[in-house]
């Protein structure tokens, strides 16, 4: 594994609560994620996985608690860290082409040499030949590739993936697993929410189980990967 070209980033969540109406989607979640870890979050629907990832992406504001990122190479918090986020929704415009979408987001994020970067990514995700087609015409698998390309435009040190394999066929899942392996091995810190055991879950270096908004198991504190991923009732 080649050493990363950037300094790996760690995350710290302290006492995060997120309240929707009277209900706590997340309660008192505290977590330290080391730079370069690849964490798999497992849990039933409604356990708070998506909320947690959206908070880490800074899309959702927690009702209480703090989130901070820090680089290995420097002390203190780094406020400039912007995670890459792949959600269940593709977060790209159907009425624009793959290339137009990526150029848009590249320019917004002030990526250096945007056209070159978009070119590289389109090649990486295997969509070079479809770059001029409207995303509306893409299959679910192809849209997911555009979504991943979008997330990687600014070469994020942290990557958040919310059930990324949803709707992908076995080929798509295999491709995704390979991508994630590559990203993990390059030193990126990754947080993934998954639904159960799969090719992708086995890429994780740590697993955490969420139930009703709280962390109920963590491989770091002794639980086994398998038990977390198969929702074994304790």
């Amino acid at each position, binding site marked *: 594994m080649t050493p990363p070209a950037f300094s790996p980033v760690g995350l710290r969540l302290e006492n995060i609560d997120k309240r929707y109406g009277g209900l706590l989607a997340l309660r008192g979640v505290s977590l330290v994620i080391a730079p370069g870890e690849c964490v798999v979050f497992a849990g039933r629907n409604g356990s708070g996985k998506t909320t947690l990832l*959206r908070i880490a*992406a*800074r*899309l*959702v*504001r927690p009702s209480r608690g703090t989130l901070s990122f820090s680089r290995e190479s420097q002390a203190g918090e780094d406020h400039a860290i*912007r995670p890459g*986020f792949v*959600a269940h*929704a*593709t*977060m*790209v*415009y*159907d*009425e*624009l082409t793959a290339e*137009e979408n990526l150029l*848009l*987001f590249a*320019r*917004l*994020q*002030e990526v250096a040499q945007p056209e070159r970067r978009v070119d590289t990514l389109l090649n990486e995700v295997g969509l070079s030949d479809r770059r001029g087609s409207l995303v509306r015409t893409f299959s679910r698998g192809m849209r997911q590739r555009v979504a991943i390309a*979008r997330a990687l435009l600014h070469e994020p040190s942290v990557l958040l993936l919310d059930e990324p394999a949803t709707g992908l066929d076995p080929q798509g899942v295999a491709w995704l697993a390979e991508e994630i392996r590559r990203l993990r091995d390059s030193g990126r810190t990754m947080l993934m929410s998954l639904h159960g055991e799969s090719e992708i879950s086995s890429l994780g270096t740590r697993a955490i189980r969420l139930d009703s908004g709280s962390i109920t198991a963590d491989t770091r504190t002794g639980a086994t990967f398998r038990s977390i991923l198969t929702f074994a009732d304790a």
Partner: protein
Amino acid sequence: MSLLPNAAVLLGKELRTEFRSRELLTTTIVFILIVIVLFSFTFDPTSDESRRFAPGLLWLAFLFASSLMLQPCFLREQHNDTLSALRLSVRDPFAIFLAKLAANTLFLLLTELLLLPLFAVMYNVPVIPVLQWLVLVFFLASLGISIAGTALSAISAQARMRELLLPLLMLPLLTPILVASTEVTKSLFDRTPYVQWKGIGFLAVFDLVFLTALWLFGEYLLEE
């Protein structure tokens, strides 16, 4: 400061999307046309009557049309959750508003200018001699409508009954624009046309006040 470049990139996207499908522009133009025609049935568009009523009707038509045209503004960003992508990509969320209100102002202005000749003919009002002042009023009023409308459409997109809600929120709020624009237009259509600088200034102040309010509170409108 990346605010303006970001806004420019986003404005490009808004324009490209709209000019590709032209759905907003065409439906808005047709709507205003229908309203203008219907209004003409309600009174006799002789020269004198027209001069009194036409400006008000024109601006009412524009207001109603804009309250419909502005609905998709943030609603369409819910599809595929592209709003989240924008929020993740821009440094200052105000860039999103700036781009959208600029695009909306442009669209409104375009529809107004396209319909002006037709309106002049149907209602017998002298438009040519005061054309540049009309364009100025159109611009300032459209800007005000867009600023308020863009902000309110971010709110209505998150509520139920959004089709009816946006007009409900926008129309009372924009009464000052209706009043000022109508009065300035009226004096431009007068037998001896003159420019009501008071009205022009008023519109400019309205625009400034609400642009500032949007700048201060915009990010909260997009919060999750």
